[in-house]
């Protein structure tokens, strides 16, 4: 510990005052914070302060994302090996998955953190720890087939145009990770929209991929033939409820396992990092609209209308979005009442977009971004109501 302290003390002079690396002072500070909290003490009342810091707040989200990351590596390997007809041994699959996933994560961190340093240096602001979460969320929403350059482009777009141009963390109204994801979705729809094959190719196409799997469950659900229910169509393609819930199917890297997202969401709710109001609102929204659509399902209507609403929660990125994207406190509304409404509308819109707009198989991303824009309005309305209830004191 002393050695590390000494190391930081020795390097400090390069980053301070007239040091050669002075513009990178925010970077030095961020690194120092990882190892040492501040030694700063309070100047005025209140003399004691809470032990919680923004750094820890963000770190807890990252910790809850790690299971999704590791499962993502495993699942990417599994799907590729299945497609290639290769024996399903754990470690080779994990190693293959890591080779696909880790570069995307590293690229995401390099570019995300890089832009953050650039902006912090120019603004002379401290680095905001939010970028660590953004750079972890972003690659987990990508299909494993994403080219590296697209990942770099996406995270750059997300961090710069989703956040930094508005003033950085705390001032962004869109979720930066989703902004980057949405950019890729619209800029490169062929690879990104989810109706293509999302399985990384093992041994560079030595064996045909389409021998085993076709499209993602979302794409299948839209195109289910009228003679079958969606559940039957999915089951026929190997996507039964437990497979979808556990996540052993081709999907975005981190988003496939509803179980891990559920665990993450529950832990984050218990420790108070994620708002339970948003998460429950989301789930209620999805289920409520799912049931409403069930009422309209009948002879001759699209089978998607009649899908069990719980399937909406487990296919595609809904679970991941609910657990980690909707709960981003900065882009969500602040007030508690608005958070319920926000969550409900995200859930409801997700189902609506999925069922009625075949061009967008995945609905949650657009639903979240749409509601991000409305978050300030919801807050405004709630605050107006609160003010009306207060006895004025002017």
């Amino acid at each position, binding site marked *: 510990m002393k050695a590390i302290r000494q190391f930081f003390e020795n390097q400090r002079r390069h980053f301070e005052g007239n040091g050669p690396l002075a513009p990178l002072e925010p970077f030095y500070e961020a690194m120092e914070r990882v190892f040492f909290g501040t030694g700063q003490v309070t100047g005025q009342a209140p*003399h*004691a302060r*809470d032990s919680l810091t923004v*750094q820890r707040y963000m770190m807890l989200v990252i910790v809850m994302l790690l299971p999704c990351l590791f499962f993502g590596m495993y699942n990417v390997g599994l799907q590729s090996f299945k497609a290639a007809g290769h024996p399903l041994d754990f470690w080779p699959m994990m190693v293959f998955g890591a080779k696909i996933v880790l570069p995307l994560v590293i690229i995401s961190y390099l570019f995300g953190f890089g832009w953050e340093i650039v902006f912090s240096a120019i603004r002379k602001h401290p680095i905001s720890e939010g970028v660590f979460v953004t750079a972890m969320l972003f690659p987990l929403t990508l299909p494993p087939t994403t080219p590296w350059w697209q990942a770099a482009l996406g995270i750059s777009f997300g961090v710069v145009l989703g956040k930094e141009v508005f003033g950085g963390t705390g001032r962004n109204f869109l979720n930066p990770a989703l902004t980057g994801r949405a950019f890729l979705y619209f800029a490169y729809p062929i690879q990104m929209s989810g109706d293509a094959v999302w399985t990384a190719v093992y041994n560079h196409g030595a064996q045909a991929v389409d021998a085993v799997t076709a499209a993602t469950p979302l794409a299948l659900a839209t195109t289910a033939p009228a003679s079958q229910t969606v559940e039957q169509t999915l089951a026929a393609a190997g996507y039964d409820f437990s497979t979808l819930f556990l996540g052993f199917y081709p999907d975005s890297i981190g988003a496939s396992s509803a179980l891990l997202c559920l665990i993450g969401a529950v832990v984050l709710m218990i420790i108070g990092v994620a708002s339970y109001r948003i998460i429950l609102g989301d789930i209620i929204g999805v289920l409520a609209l799912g049931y409403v659509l069930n009422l309209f399902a009948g002879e001759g209507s699209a089978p998607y209308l009649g899908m069990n609403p719980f399937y909406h929660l487990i296919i595609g990125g809904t679970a991941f979005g609910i657990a980690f994207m909707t709960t981003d406190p900065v882009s969500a509304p602040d007030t508690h009442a608005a958070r319920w409404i926000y969550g409900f509308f995200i859930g409801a819109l997700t189902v609506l977009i999925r069922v009625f707009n075949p061009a967008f198989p995945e609905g949650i991303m657009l639903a979240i971004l749409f509601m991000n824009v409305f978050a300030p309005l919801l807050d405004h309305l709630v*605050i107006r109501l609160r003010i009306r209830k207060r006895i004025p004191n*002017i």
Partner: protein
Amino acid sequence: MQKLTIKKGYRFRMAGAPADDLIVLPAPARVAVLPERVPHIKPRLLVKKGDQVQIGSPLFEDKRNPRFKFLSPGGGTIHDISFGPRRVIQAIVIDRKETPEPETRFQAVTENQLAQIERQELVDRILDGGMWWAFRELPFRDLPAPDGEPPFILISLNAKEPFQPSPAVYLKDQEQLLAYGLKALNVLAPGKVRVFADASESSVIEKAGQWLTHVVSGNYPCDDPATVLYRIKSDASQNRAWFVAGQDLLALAHLLREGRYPIRRVVAVAGSAAPDRRHCHIRLGAPLSQMVEDARLHGGERFVVGGLFRGYSSDSDGYVGFYETAVNVVPEGGEPEFLALFNPGVSRPSYSRTFLSRLNPKALVYNCNMHGDLRACIACMHCADVCPVDLLPQMIYKSILAEEVEEYLELGLLDCVECGLCSYVCPSKIELSRTFIATKAAYAKEQAVKPD
């Protein structure tokens, strides 16, 4: 007796509570008054260095209203008048003369006289006796104008802020004085006196039961007059209620009944780094060194006079101000902690649920570390969850920065209790309550300017 339950706020499990015994300390060689610590006033000195004073001689007055006088708690010579930056009068130090200590006498009001006395007459007696400072007016906590009759006079018998003197200790054998004081307040605002105590203080409720109008249960700062007012007011005209702290009421009653300037104070000496944690019976304006022996400290302690959340820090050679009734000695902190970010935090105090201390039933040691540094607001909403008067502190803060005066007033800035909890819980370490207090003070100043 009404019951009030205040759900928000925060219950601290803080190590270093004072024992319930009361030690009577001898009169110190020096006492001081600290004009700097009386909010909003503009002091004009009435004495100079070397002057002879008596107990009860005026030391300074408020330029805004010269009838607000502040009297000497000791008889002897003015030893020193110390000035801070911008000529702020920090302290007027008096070298006490040993016995007999000269004392100014005032006219006493007997219980029978109190029943017939005119309001104006009583106001004049209090003003002349230099005890008007016992009254403060919400929302600014400034001295109220003597002419108007307040919508309420609120008396909080205890203070939930750690660690204030226990009412059971300072009210012991003072029940008659309390009753007398409440009668006097009833002359000032007939039928508008509201007295409340915390539900956990069963002995006080038993003793002062007939006087209590409200029993408050909840966490800090549920017993603050501003919190209670927020709950009991039914109309905007009640915003400018007055309040008197429990011990100040005893002092006021002492002045009126005995005709002598009150110099008794019970101060809680506590905090995890205090060598002796107990209640001390002191002279008003006594030096801290009398209460905390320097020799038994380890170095690296902070003296906080008046409580961790609202008090001021002081050197060990400082003094206790007019309003403060607590001295907390806590570790200064300031050591960078290795891998603090990943500490499971079994004994780290936190409002959030992100530390294992949540499951630790023991009292925790609080220090003065910031535990982080300034970051942007991430809308975690802890400040709104903890606010006892349902404010949205982050919204108010943003509108203060944007100078949207109408907006922050509308959002209820003036209801702010100044409890400091929003600053305490903020993970971004934003100085919310300090900003609110400063903004309120600036607004009060602006309001005080009379148009010609």
